């Protein structure tokens, strides 16, 4: 067998230029597959990091909330969330997996800046500040090393402050106060309706008797009135001080987004003395633990007869799941094309070699070399082309990756609120990809060489010897 290997290597050198061209084609194909694959992988992981930072891995809801709760969040609250969090936190299986377990509130209502006659529907999100900050520091894949933490806008020292989306800030005329750039003030709708009836009575005097003007600004932060209906169906209103406007990426969200302290949201939606939340969010240390955590959680909830259901972040963010699938499909499509090109290249090269060595093949067969040995000879040469070419491609990809990373390019991913850095993974998460691409190309090369190799083996000896 070592003779076969020895001969294979020497044959590669025999027509060095052709071998080099073939291996280069394979190398380029390998490098392209790897760079693209790494780009896709990095995109997906960055996307995932963003989602997990904001929404954790698993959300626990009152049963039925996921399907119907958006229409009436108040009716689908989790009562006594502290005990549920305690239950989860004390579970021996879940405890080492969980990084953050926090209650959240989702609600909607009317936000008004009545000083300028502006009001609009808002979508309120209540978080516990310390937990949200911790969630925002999740960086399992090391993509944001060295980046400063993003300010969350809510704080435990004052539960009435928070942030809103840029779109809703614009609609409510808060751009100037929040220092948002490129933001026109909303037009005051001119009152063109004719005066109706007799001159109206003096309401201003009546109103003034009781209207203690609620302080419009609180340490420089403008005030909004948040109006909602409680779980009992009663109207409720709270003052909310906005300390910043934060773009939310997707316009529909940006036009209604309000982030507030959990307690403010809870009091608004469920009343002052409530212990209800709309969801409990769990962030795990690692996404790989998701299936295990889900399973254990279901078991735990069912065993305590709690009427709660769970959803993971892919179910809550169909965009993420779709994005992951889509990107994966593109990669497979492109990788397949590359593989086919490699296949054709190697078939061509091996066929030419077989043709040139017809006489040699005939001689070997006459001397007593078996057909299978001839077959293996050419297959091995094909696999050497594939192996060396793929290895060269791996090295090329690493170099390209290091180069691109050093350039610190930023790209805005679709749907995200900020541009992120383009990194090609040169870390351990790229290893399976590299091994996979390498193996695929070597297998493709062997397969490609097999048909001409088979032809060589089956050549009638007499005809082969007649060749010069």
């Amino acid at each position, binding site marked *: 067998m070592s003779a076969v290997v020895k001969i294979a290597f020497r044959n590669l050198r025999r027509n060095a230029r052709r071998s080099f061209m073939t291996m280069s084609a394979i190398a380029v194909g390998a490098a392209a597959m790897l760079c693209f694959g790494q780009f896709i992988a990095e995109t997906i992981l960055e996307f995932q990091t963003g989602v997990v930072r904001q929404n954790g891995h698993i959300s626990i809801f009152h049963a039925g909330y996921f399907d119907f709760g958006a*229409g*009436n969040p*108040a009716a689908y609250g989790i009562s006594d969330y502290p005990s549920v969090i305690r239950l989860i936190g004390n579970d021996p299986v879940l405890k080492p997996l969980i990084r953050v377990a926090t209650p959240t509130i989702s609600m*909607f*209502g*009317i936000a*008004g800046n*009545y*000083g300028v*006659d502006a*009001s609009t529907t808002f979508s309120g999100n209540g978080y516990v500040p310390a937990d949200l900050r911790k969630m925002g520091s999740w960086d399992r894949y090391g993509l944001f090393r060295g980046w400063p933490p993003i300010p969350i806008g809510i704080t435990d020292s004052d539960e009435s402050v928070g942030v809103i989306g840029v779109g809703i800030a614009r609609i409510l005329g808060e751009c100037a106060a929040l220092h948002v750039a490129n933001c026109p003030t909303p037009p005051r709708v001119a*009152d063109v*309706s004719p*005066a*109706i*009836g007799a001159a*109206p*009575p003096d*309401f*201003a005097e*009546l*109103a003034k*008797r*009781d*209207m203690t003007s*609620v302080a419009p600004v609180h340490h420089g932060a403008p005030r909004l*009135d948040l*109006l*909602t*209906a*409680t779980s*009992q*169906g*009663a*109207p*409720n*209103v*709270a*003052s909310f001080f906005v300390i910043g406007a934060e773009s939310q990426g997707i316009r529909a969200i940006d036009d209604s987004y309000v982030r507030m302290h959990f307690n403010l949201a809870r*009091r*608004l939606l469920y*009343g*002052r003395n409530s212990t209800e939340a709309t969801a409990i969010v769990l962030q795990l240390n690692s996404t790989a633990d998701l299936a295990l955590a889900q399973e254990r959680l279901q078991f735990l909830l069912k065993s305590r007869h709690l009427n709660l259901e769970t959803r993971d972040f892919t179910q809550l963010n169909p965009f993420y799941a779709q994005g992951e699938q889509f990107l994966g499909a593109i990669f497979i499509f492109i990788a397949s094309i590359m593989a086919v090109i490699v296949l054709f290249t190697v078939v061509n090269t091996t066929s030419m070699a077989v043709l040139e060595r017809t006489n040699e093949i005939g001689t070997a067969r006459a001397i007593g070399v078996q057909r299978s040995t001839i077959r293996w000879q050419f297959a091995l040469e094909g696999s050497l082309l594939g192996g060396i070419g793929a290895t060269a491609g791996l090295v090329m990809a690493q170099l390209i990756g290091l180069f691109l990373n050093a350039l610190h390019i930023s790209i805005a991913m679709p749907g995200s609120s900020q541009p992120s850095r383009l990194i090609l993974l040169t870390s351990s998460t790229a290893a399976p990809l590299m091994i996979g691409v390498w193996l695929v190309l070597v297998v493709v090369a062997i397969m490609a060489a097999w048909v001409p190799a088979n032809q060589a083996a089956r050549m009638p000896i007499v005809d082969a010897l007649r060749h010069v």
Partner: protein
Amino acid sequence: MNWHSARWFGLGAAFCAAMLAHGSAQAASAAPSPDAILRAADIVRFPQQPFRLTNTLVEYINGKAHDRVVLSVYSKPDPATAEFNTLVRYVEPPRDAGKMVLFNGTNLWFYDPASKESVRISPQQRLIGQAADGDVVTTNLSRDYAATMLGAESLQDADRANRDCWHLDLKPKAPGAVYARIEIWIERSSSRPVKAKFYSDSGRMLKIAYYHRYSQVLDAVRPTETIIIDAVDVNLVTTMTTADFVAQAIPDAWFQRDFLPRVP
């Protein structure tokens, strides 16, 4: 019809109907119990028998009249619960004519004659516009709230006249009440409500109501106009004026949601 327009006067009007009532009870004794005072005020505001009336709502923004709606209101105590069920039909403006709102028990239904469909209005959807005004004028205060006496006060009514009033503080008797707290001033001599302030669970004031233009309506002297000042949207004031008050027998069927297409 735009669900979220500020033209939900109908709802306010619906409940406002209960305001004009038939009752007697001029309870003017020395230091009666707070609940008795409240009950007396309720009787001044709404009658105990079926009736219909015309309600005119005018919305003022920044002091200027902005919008005007005229409604026909039919109200009747429910045979089972003694709660008032109310059916409101839009008369003006023409584009809303024929639309109806039904309040029976705790559900609010909107009916559109063009589609002949009725839809339930959720509490969220009642937030905007004047839907909540209805709560201000209809709420059966003595039934839903427990009163405590804060003292005797003198205050100016909507026409700047001084009135000697009992100042009561109301807290809900059961969860499900619309307001977390109400302050109400009731004239001591006549049990007429003069003014009320309505608060949300967070402690913020939601609305201020002034009841005035008392005149003989049917068998009692009742307020024919209520001024509602929005304490959140400070530019907004609504007036509700009742007229054409008539005691009338109304079929129970009218207060069924399924019957709405057939109400004449």
